[in-house]
Each structure stands twice: as C-alpha cells, then as structure tokens.
C-alpha cells in the first residue's frame, strides 16, 4: 500500500501563496524543478493526485491538464461544486470531483494509486484538512528564498501534538529551494 504525501512550497515567512492568490513567486524555477531528483522521484512514485478546487482552478484551460500536467495520473479534486463540463481526460489522467470530504477523496485516491503513493497538492485548506484528519503519512515542504509578506498559512489551526513531523531528508535544490521531507508520527 502506498503512502499519502502532502507536498507544498512555502515562502520563508510561511506563506503558500501571495495576497492575490498567486504562487508565481514560489515557482521561479519551474523548468529546473522538473529535473531535480525529488521531483523525478515524486513523479515516479505518485499513483494518484488529490488537489483542492483552487489548485484545479489554477489551470488556465482544464482541458489542457491531460497531456500537460506533470502528474499524468488519476486526479481527485476536492470541491463543493464540480464544473459543469467534465474536463478532457486520457487513458492515464482521469478526473474525479469529490464532494463528500477529504476522507473520501483520499480513500478513492488510494484505491486508484494501488501500490503507488497519493500525492496531495497542498493548497492551504486541503493541507489543513489532511493534517487535521491524520490522513498524511509524509509532509514534503519546499522553502523558497522569498518573503511574500502576506498570504495563506498552511498550518493555521493545527493544534500542538496533532502533527509531529520527524525529519527524513533535507536537500538544497537549484535556486535556493530547500526540499524537506518529514514523516508524520502518529
């Protein structure tokens, strides 16, 4: 059985997007990032992806996710309202819009991933739900060398003891990105 991995990129001051909701300042290195070991490993091990509605909405054209998105695997979008028109799919990349909560999304994603991992793309609310419900096995946090000043904080509302991360790996990537991996002790 695979693991559930919560991945996110954060600024030094602890934000995962800027006040306008943009993550651009956190990914100046997108092309180089694809070539890094942790990313390659993630692409290879990920059997399905869970993302929030906001992450899904970041795609300019949802029909272009199939064939273009890094993870060409079944995608489970956590939302209250599925889009009116189902986005384009391929043999490898399918969309499931999950409206009955994070537990259900993770359970379905696990089933789809089989022996591989479920990667949760961490918009703040999805990340928090995942941590609070004790659903994540690992936390992968990248820290980018930038101050955003304001924005969303991923760990707001987490109580002490609810999440106990234990360091597994810290790697410095090009562009000053620090990639960290923690397993979560339960």
């Amino acid at each position: 059985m695979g693991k559930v991995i919560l991945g996110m990129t954060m600024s030094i001051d602890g934000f995962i997007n800027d006040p306008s909701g943009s993550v651009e300042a956190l990914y100046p290195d997108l092309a180089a990032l694809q070539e890094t070991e942790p990313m390659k490993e993630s692409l290879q091990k990920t059997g399905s992806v869970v993302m929030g509605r906001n992450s899904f909405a970041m795609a300019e054209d949802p029909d272009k996710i199939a064939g273009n998105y890094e993870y060409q695997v079944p995608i489970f979008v956590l939302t209250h309202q599925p889009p009116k028109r189902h986005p384009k799919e391929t043999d490898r990349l399918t969309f499931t819009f999950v409206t009955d909560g994070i537990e259900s999304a993770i359970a379905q994603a696990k089933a789809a991933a089989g022996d591989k991992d479920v990667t949760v793309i961490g918009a703040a609310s999805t990340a928090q739900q995942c941590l609070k419900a004790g659903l994540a096995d690992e936390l992968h946090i990248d820290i980018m060398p930038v101050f955003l000043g304001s924005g969303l904080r991923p760990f707001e509302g987490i109580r002490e003891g609810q999440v106990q991360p234990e360091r597994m790996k810290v790697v410095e990537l090009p562009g000053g990105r620090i990639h960290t991996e923690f397993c979560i002790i339960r």
Partner: protein
Amino acid sequence: MRKIIVFTNLTLDGVMQAPGRPDEDRRGDFKHGGWAAPYAAMNEAGGNLADAAPLLMGRRTYEDFYAYWPNQTDNPFTEVLNNTPKYVASRTLKEPLAWTHSTLLKGDVAEAVAALKEQPGKDFLVMGSGELVQTLMKHGLVDVYVLLIHPLILGSGRRLFTDGGPSSALQLVDTKTTMKGVMIATYQPKKE
C-alpha cells in the same frame, strides 16, 4: 559597513515565541515555552557567531536576558553576554541601563541602527526581539538571516514573520541540518 545578522529559532509554522524556557514569554497564554531546548541547535549553528558580537535587542528580550543570564554561574555564555556591547530599542526604558555595556538606542530606531552600521566595528547579532526584527526588515536593515527551523508545528504563538511584512527575494547561502533534525538556513537579501 557592519552587517546585521538575525539569528532565530523558528518552528515549521514560523513561531519564535519562548524557544528557550517555559517562563521566557507567556504572552497570549503561550504554553509551549522551551520548545527549542531539547534540540540544542544554537550550539551547532555557530557558537563562533555568538562569541562576542555586539547585540541589538528589543526591550523585552533585553529584560528577559538580563533577568536570566547574569544569574547563571556555571555558563561561559554569561560572561560573554555581560561583556558584549548591547544596544537596546525601547520606548520606555531610560539610561543608564542596569546591565553592563548596555546602551539605549535613541530617537528613531531605524535611524539609530542605520547610523550604528556606518561605524567601524563588528557585525551585530539580533536574537529574539521580534518587534525589532520587523522594524529592521521594514527598513531593509537586515543583512543576514540565520534561521534555525525546528521540526515542530505548534499551531499558536508569536511569529517572527508577521502578516503584512515586506515582500522580497532572498538568496540561500548555506544550509545544514543538525543531528536532531533542525535545519539551519542562512539567507541574504538579494542585491537589487
């Protein structure tokens, strides 16, 4: 020009409050004081750094250090702190300050610090002093951030980087990880 080095213990969720002791800073009913102590990362982060650098301190950190350090008998750090020049930002304290080698920063803090940087001498170290750090950041006076990021999520407590701070790009100049899993990341503001 003398540099200003911000040297801080942080949790993964950015909390800086009361890393050393339970009674260090209980503001906001903070119950997790002393969270950094078991990791003892300060020693690995560069004892040389703390050796004899003059300190820039906020009033609260100054008072807390003064209440604690001069009373420690067995710690070599006590003598270092007693003898090092300490510059204190405060709206309420009056000179002379009680702790030896302490000077009150007069007038506008940012202006006073900017003037100090121009004088010859050693680089300054800022420990704790959350409010002062925010003022220094706002005025672009910080040259180096040494962040000791602990593998902890506390969920509450005062943060070093508060909402509404400046936004800017930095450069990662060094990372290392201690045996107990504390990441020590050193950043410098990117030159325009």
